[in-house]
């Protein structure tokens, strides 16, 4: 049976993440698209189709949390799973307060990712 796969968008300035994460997502049964910056994501047509957004926190120009605010301002309710290589509890708490589904610390396991995605799609 053909189930339409949900689109998960990845926004990260790190190329290795953009390379590896979409493959894993597809292995987990999702459609995946990767963007190197928040601006590129906002400018793309993926915005309307995305079921879940995996978002890096620290990026040049517009950061992850800024994109989160932008989306909230636009009334977009895409569930967001933050990923970060920087263990900063304050930032983590702030983005969760702002409505993020999860904040995963790099490196994260595929199980942690699956759980976060499950939560995200359930919320939706």
């Amino acid at each position, binding site marked *: 049976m053909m189930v339409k796969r949900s689109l998960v968008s990845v926004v990260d300035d790190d190329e290795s993440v953009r390379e590896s994460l979409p493959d894993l997502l597809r292995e987990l049964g999702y459609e995946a698209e990767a963007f190197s910056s928040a601006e590129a994501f906002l400018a793309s047509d993926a915005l309307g189709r995305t079921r879940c957004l995996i978002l890096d926190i620290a990026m040049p120009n517009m950061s992850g949390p800024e994109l989160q605010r932008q989306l909230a301002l636009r009334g977009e309710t895409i569930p967001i799973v933050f990923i970060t290589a920087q263990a900063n509890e304050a930032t983590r708490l702030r983005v969760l307060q702002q409505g993020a589904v999860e904040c995963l610390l*790099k*490196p*994260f396991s595929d199980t942690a990712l699956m759980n976060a995605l499950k939560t995200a799609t359930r919320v939706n």
Partner: protein
Amino acid sequence: MENELGRTINALPGLVWTARPDGAIDFVNRRWCDYTGLGASESIGEGWQAAVHPNDLGELLAQWQSILLSGKAGDMEARLRRHDGEHHWFVFRVSPMTDPSGQIVKWCGINFDVEGRWRAEEARRARWWLPSPTRESHFRSIADSIPALVSLKLPNGKDELVNSRTLEYFGKSLDELNAASLHDTVHPDDHARLLAVSKGPGLQAVDPYDLEVRAADSFDIEVRLRRADGIYRWHHVRAFPLRDPEGPIVFWYLLQTDIDDLKRAEAQLAGEKRLLEMVAAGDSLSDILDALCRFVEDTAGDCACSVLLVDPDGPTFRHGAGPSLPKDYNAVFDGKSIDPTFGPCSLAATVKTPVIASDVLTDARWSASPWPGMMAAIDMRSCWSTPVLSGDRKALGVFAVYRHEPESPSQLQRDLIEQVTHIASIAIEGAQRESALKRSEAFLKEAQRLSSTGGFSWNVATNEITWSDEVYRIFGLEPGGPLTPDVTDLRVHPGDLPFVYEKVNQARIDGKDFGFDYRLVMPDGSVKYLHTVFHRTEDSDGRFEFVGAIQDVTQRRRSEDALGELRTELTRVARITSLGALTASIAHEVNQPLSGILTNASTSLRMLAADPPNIDGARETARRTIRDANRAAEVITRLRALFAKKAATTEPVDLNDAAQEIIALSLSELQRNGVIVRTEFAGDLPPVTGDRVQLQQVILNLVLNASDAMSGLIDRSRQLTIRTDLGPDGSVRLAVQDTGIGFGTEHAGRLFDAFFTTKSGGMGIGLSVSNSIVENHQGRLWAEANDGPGATFLFSLPRRTEGETTQDEATVHRYAAPGENGATSNTVSTQ
């Protein structure tokens, strides 16, 4: 007989005439008619007078009258006009003809033409030879009108006639004058000279005008003649001999002109010239002033002089000169403060006009002063004080004349004093300039020594080189030694010698200003670094010449090297502390590839576990896994390379000192950026406790940030102010204020976040690191927007408490210890 007589008379070699007893002419001979051009009938009676020169007629008639009255033979003199209008001097020799009873029946006269030199002399001699009341009065009328002593001496030296001025001057009658000895009329010191000039050699006559023994002709000499009041005055004596036709001298004319004033003026001028020569020759001021006093004492006579110098610092007097005054008296004024009520010198120095105390005893101005008593002690009654003023009318000193008698200065004396005070002012001002010059030369020398800079000149045309003492010192040579190329090149570092030659030769050719650095090797093997500049100029002959300076910059080099080392050390520490503050950053760098590894590994496993397994995909992701693992390893290697050697320390830190060092370190960079640095350091800032180098890192970071924030400014000055003070809570504060672009309010909350930056080239680490350092010193770092443009970054730290010696070292060490288990520097590569 009549005819015979007439022929005879007409043949006589003279103009012959006869007159009646009453003087009327009744006959003239032919020669008279031929000479005068007057006819015989025209000439008789009074007609002959037409031939007499009008100027001589009155005198001639008077003499004729007196001869007629005397009834005796006599001579007269007058000029007769020849027929052609020319006048000749004639002597009219007349004698009476008497009858047997003695009654005069006729006068016979014969006129000789006495024109011509010897005849004129004879005529003059005849005039004087036969003095008559008329001639004497004639002499007097002329001689008395001459403003000089005029006398006519007989060959025996006796005065025959003198004018009234002579009698007045000597205060003697003619007889007294003749009775007086040379001693009575001529200054004793002048006798020998007078005799020598007026006598033949070896002759010992008492009277210089003893004509019997005189050999010389006319002479003149300057001697002092004694006036009636006993004062000798210089006179210029001119003596002319008057000889008869045969040669012997019959009279001496003496003209004695008073040249005393002239002589005095000459002496004064010579004295002044001598003084000015002393000034020009650079004689010592005390010698000049001494000579000046003695000069006035000699010229004015019977006085003592002094010069007091004004020391403007006091104002006090300093002793200048007073050669004829007692030492004790002079000593009173040396160092005495100038009080105008003390005496005339003090008053003159104050009011800057001459003060004349003509009689100390009666002068009310000094009645309350001890000065009159001092004057009495040295037997002085009057004192004339004249200020010595500079060109801009400052009192340089006071010149004073002391006299034993109560007196005021005469005009001559005033003139003399005015002249010498002028010379004194030249001398004193010259001495002051000289000492100022010496002082500034000494300053220059001192400055050269202090700055290790010497001056030199190099005349390219003559290849002549001169060095200041300091250059000799830099080269380690004895000052003043010869400067041959052997000497000047001796110490130059062998490696620099070709370069130095090249530079110097280039300068010889193109003659342009230049400068370069080179090294010397000293005898003890040490190396000196020299910086030299050459400036082209011209010598007095217009040939081109270089003047310049050589500076020993060894010390500066060493400081620069030391500063460089310090800066490197700070940079190293900065890197350490950055790492310390950036555990998160390290994690980021490492976790990023780890994340990739994990994700790829998961993907790979899942691909292999699929049915059917996706072998190609798994291989590709496995390859990416390896790549990411390598990348992680590289990150670790890179981070290890940044690790440094030692732990931080805690010590008392003076933030003023620490900031001052940072300014010194970064000054060149700040200047390059056109930043003006100001400091406002609190004077009594208490120390704080911490790691000096880390705190300096914070300051450096704030300073460089401020400089960067101003780098784009073109419309206002780039001012950086570093301020320290005490906060209201007693904490120690340091603020760095700039006039730069400031920070937008939207950024205010994120300034201290790691990776936040508004700078295109920035990492966003500096303020974050700084914040961490300050927090770990129990302090606070924050930013404020200025009232005007720019921003101020401040931190405050608790002041060091009494007895505080250590701090929780672990806190500080966190920044230097990258390892998980508190591993410290000994585990870290030292490169």
